[in-house]
């Protein structure tokens, strides 16, 4: 299976990632692309700073992706997660899941996002428009609950 995982500071190109997943193939019937973007929180936010754990980030996302592959009949999977300073309106994360049919693609993409939120070693800090460095973003219980719906966690 086409399986791409990248952790990078640079922006990503969703169209190019999608083309490299689906190009020259005629067995894929459904592609779900999830893009997570930096919000300005009502104008309060100047930027998000994303810290990550190099090495573990790739390894953990690889484990999550492998879990998705055993659960759904996927024909391709791409995960790109950015780190560093990200401005409001800019993209943070991309998940592409391809399958013959839509249900597998939708479920795999939602599963991957729930696990990325709660298991991938990234931490967001807010930089505010008034020039101050705001707080580290707190983990949301709703994200833990969303993850629990998938049952047993990947090892």
């Amino acid at each position, binding site marked *: 299976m086409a399986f791409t995982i990248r952790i990078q500071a640079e922006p990503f190109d969703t169209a190019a990632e999608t083309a490299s997943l689906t190009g020259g193939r005629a067995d894929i019937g459904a592609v779900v692309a999830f893009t*997570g973007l930096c919000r300005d929180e009502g104008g309060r936010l100047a930027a998000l700073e*994303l*810290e*990550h*754990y190099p*090495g*573990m980030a790739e*390894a*953990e996302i690889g484990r999550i992706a492998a879990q998705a592959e055993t659960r759904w009949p996927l024909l391709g999977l791409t995960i790109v*997660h950015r780190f560093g300073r990200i401005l409001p309106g800019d993209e*943070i*994360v991309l998940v592409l899941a391809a399958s013959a049919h839509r249900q597998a693609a939708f479920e795999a993409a939602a599963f991957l*996002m729930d696990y*990325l*939120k*709660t*298991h*991938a*070693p*990234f*931490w*967001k*800090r807010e930089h505010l428009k008034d020039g101050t460095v705001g707080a*580290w*973003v*707190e*983990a949301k219980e709703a*994200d833990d609950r969303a993850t629990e719906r998938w049952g047993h966690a990947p*090892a």
Partner: protein
Amino acid sequence: MKLVYFAWVRERVGKTDEQVEVPDGVLTVADLVRWLKGRGEEYEHAFENEGIVRAAIDHVHAKPEARITGAREIAFFPPMTGG
């Protein structure tokens, strides 16, 4: 054994990483946290709520009861907020 810290755990400890020699009897992640807390206020502060700080052994999430014997790198960090 190398210890690495991230986000506000890193800020409270005051360093990104350090090399430590743990004494005999420090067998689990929980033991290691207890031992670290005895090393100074900054560790006391970082681990003041032990239920919050997460750990990973050699890039794999680990529970407090996980054995650290033979580990090369142990990481401590807050709950993750990526995605």
